[in-house]
């Protein structure tokens, strides 16, 4: 008897499998950027008191794509607060979209000519923009404008975006304004002062005192590893960084995979120093940890900034609402709050951070900048050469 039921279940399962979605393919709708740019209708001006509400009729929906940790981190993540605040101050619904693979997911959809199911991407970095343009054959000049087929992001009309002028100088990395910066932070060394003294230069790391002391990350697996590599290129030059890394590895530096891999090993005391964020003490303080194990060191008094921003998809029909969202995100109140929730720094000059928070965030004397243009031509080659050297040992 049992066997009969068993087999019945099998065929039932096979029948269920046929259940999949089929949608008629729209003709020619997805080829080129269809959405017109905002026609200058100033919907809402987000200001410090944050009381204004856009005149958008009915319940409109803005689909915002972002990386998973923005929505679902075990400590705090800004996603929930941003959604509630945006919806309560605007007559609109915010829908989070968080596909595995992040920006690569959307690049691939564009490459395969599939519709983009989001209006805005939140959290775009310069290396990701470089990848978007490299893969889609677009660049700051051609995108969105004219004959260019199928870019991913449209240049923003910055005029209707409130508080846009307050964005810190040097944070903007796209001359076409496809990306509007909404947050920044720095990649630094985090070390245990009971075990070692802070190194102050790249040369220091080659000293016997730092033998086996550092854990770094794979640059293709995250922002921290990539930025530390970039800083070494700034310090030793394009011709010298590979030699430097060879010496660094000879001195026992370990390169693990993701930031999580590295930070976990650091937390367990496998090495007294790790490449991480300069906001580390904020987390440590919140978790009630001993701050001596969460000291921040900047090499050569500098650090590569980790800036991310909002970009509007070319395909969206909600350009106005997207601009409203950008205004909302740039407003001083939201800037201050999301900086605290995301444990980073605001992108604007007029956001007031809580005193204790500000004290715990280390800021370097010099921001080591890598422009979009410099990265566009070089990034891939730098990382490739470095990866081959490290993996080929």
């Amino acid at each position, binding site marked *: 008897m049992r066997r009969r039921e068993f087999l019945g279940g099998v065929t039932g399962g096979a029948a269920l499998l046929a259940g999949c979605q089929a949608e008629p393919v729209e003709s020619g709708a997805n080829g080129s950027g269809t959405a017109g740019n905002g026609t200058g209708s100033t919907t809402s001006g987000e200001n410090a008191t944050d009381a204004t509400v856009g005149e958008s009729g009915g319940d409109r929906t803005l689909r915002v794509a972002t990386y998973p940790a923005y929505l679902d981190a075990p*400590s705090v993540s800004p996603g929930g607060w941003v959604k509630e605040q945006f919806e309560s101050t605007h007559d609109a619904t915010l829908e989070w979209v968080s596909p595995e693979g992040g920006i690569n997911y959307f690049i691939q959809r564009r490459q395969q000519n599939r519709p983009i199911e989001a209006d805005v991407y939140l959290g775009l970095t310069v290396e990701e923009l470089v990848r978007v343009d490299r893969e889609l054959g677009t660049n700051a000049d051609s995108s969105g404008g004219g004959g260019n087929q199928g870019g991913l992001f449209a240049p923003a009309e910055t005029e209707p975006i409130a508080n846009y002028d307050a964005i810190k100088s040097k944070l903007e990395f796209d001359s076409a304004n496809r990306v509007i910066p909404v947050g920044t932070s720095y990649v630094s060394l985090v070390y245990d002062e009971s075990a070692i003294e802070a190194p102050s230069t790249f040369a220091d790391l080659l000293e016997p005192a730092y033998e086996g002391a550092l854990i770094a990350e794979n640059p293709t697996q995250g922002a921290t590893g990539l930025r530390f590599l970039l800083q070494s290129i700034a310090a030793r030059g394009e011709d010298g960084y590979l030699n430097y890394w060879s010496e660094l590895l000879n001195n026992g530096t370990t390169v693990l995979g993701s930031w999580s891999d590295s930070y976990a090993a650091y937390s367990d005391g496998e090495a007294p120093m790790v490449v991480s964020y300069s906001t580390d003490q904020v987390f440590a303080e919140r978790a009630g940890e001993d701050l001596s194990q969460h000291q921040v060191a900047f090499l050569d008094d500098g650090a590569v900034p980790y800036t991310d921003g909002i970009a509007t998809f070319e395909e969206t029909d909600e350009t106005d609402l997207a601009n409203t969202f950008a205004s909302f995100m740039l407003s001083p109140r939201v800037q201050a709050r999301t900086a605290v929730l995301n444990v980073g720094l605001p992108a604007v000059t007029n956001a007031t951070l809580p005193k204790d928070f500000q004290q715990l965030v280390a800021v370097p004397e010099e921001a080591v900048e890598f422009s979009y243009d410099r990265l566009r031509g070089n990034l891939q080659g730098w990382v490739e050469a470095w*990866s081959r050297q490290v993996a080929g040992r």
Partner: protein
Amino acid sequence: MRGRLGRGLPWVLGLGAAALLAVTFYYPVATVLIEAVSVAGGVTIEPIVAVLTDPFYVGWLARALADPVAFGRALLDAPVATLTGSLGLIGFTAYQALLSAIACVALGLPGAYVLARYDFPGREVARSLTILPFVMPSIMVAIGFVSMFGENGTLNRILGALGLGEIDLLFTLPIIILAHAFYNAPLVTRVTAAAWENVDARRIESARSLGASPRRAFLDVVVPRLLPAIATGAVLAYVFSFMSFAIVLALGGLGFATIEVWVYNRVTQLEYASAAALATIETSISLGLTYLYLRYEASQEGIREGGGGGRPLKRKPLFGSLTPTRVAVGGYLLVVGVVFVGPIASMIIASVTNDAGFTLANYEFLLTRQRTAYAFQVQPLNAILNSVFFAAGSLLLSVPIGTFVAVVSTRRFRGRKVIDALAMAPIAVSGVVVGLGLLRGLVFGVEVWGYRITVTGALAIIAAHAVAAYPFVVRNLTPLLGGLDRRLTESARSLGASPARAFLDISLPLVWGGVLAGAAFAVAISIGEFDSTVILATGTESYTMPVAVERYLGRRLGPATAMGCVLLGVTSGAFLVVERFGDRGGLL
């Protein structure tokens, strides 16, 4: 009714299996691998040639091809240094997989001996729990290994307390091999123990009555039945270690990069051609090895005929007077304690401790998240229910498909081992490539007659899990089916039973143990699966326990370890229930 069932069943199963594999495996994977051999509409082998002639990938092989004379001279001068000095990425991957497979057999075989030949309280439970490493996401294994074998880990604390020195294993090749053994040695144990228990005691008795010494009887009767099982375990261990990726980066570092690490790097950079070329080479090696093994397995069938349905060997009590074997078993259990129990126990301890000592904060986090999570966040209970639901679904799909494929591959026809090897492809293709293929083939969809067909959500996840799982059912069943006495089914056929009816009534009950063993792996594969799940999920509503572990991984490991322990708890519970049920309700 019976007759129609008997005649229709093979067709339903065959077509169903073929359709499922085509939609959720072969087509998606083909969309990716095609890029290794195509450029702008034409055919090329350039990406593959580029890999095979690059010293970075193939080490001395590239030098040998480029300049055979110089290489020959170097080989004569310093043979060992020339061959081991530069293995290349592919060579190193093969080398570490070989060491891992050896370690898996060394650590797994004694376990099979203990489980099959000794009786002790909790034997059944211990046997069930050997599946646990299999369901652990690599993040959890990495956490467990760091807290067990790290500089300040449990092992060093124990060694320190005993006044013994310290060992520094992290970021070395041995820790990677040990982690691969953690995953795969239990596989060797399970498969071999099943074969051992299938040995007919009467055969040993007749060998002994004919004057064979116990040693002779063991070598002539038991060993031939164990070898194929050991080989199965070793080959699977090799293939899995060969494709390893996350563990290598978390415990060893980029300096120990495998092919799969590189495939992943290429895919994140959207460099499809070189990713596809590497994955193609990787798959060829895995499948080639699988094929060789299958040839061997087939050659063993004759030797083992007449198995099934016999009287199993009587087990000895584990506890008793101190014999040399019992002392050795004790030593082995100590090793098990360190390598297998240690990392899991360390993780459980980590989930209930913080700097200050004992805490339940991490479990409170799970409860809070359950109550207050936003719709776009993962809720622990939903993740548990999804995991159980998907596991049940993929069990129902993979067992009949795996059984069907096993039956087909034990029929005698030309080229059957090729088909058998191809049926093993789901475990021999890069996980990164399968994920990318599922994204392109199922999530982005296929255009058919003006409609775009997409397959996502729960059913797609179940299908993907079943495809990943059914090779285990096949591998557990094929040796048993091959060993069956054909006269049994032949006489049923001569009495008028259809092939399907003869199989269901005669063969299946005799190999039911293998079905159960395969089913256990199917459930484990489904529960532990991560990559396909996140890609095919339509949102948080279809996230599973491993996804929750990954999402809860932050700057502090506590919440993720707590979720990891929930994963282990739920899985252990499920296995104890399923295997108990299987034993009582089975057809034996």
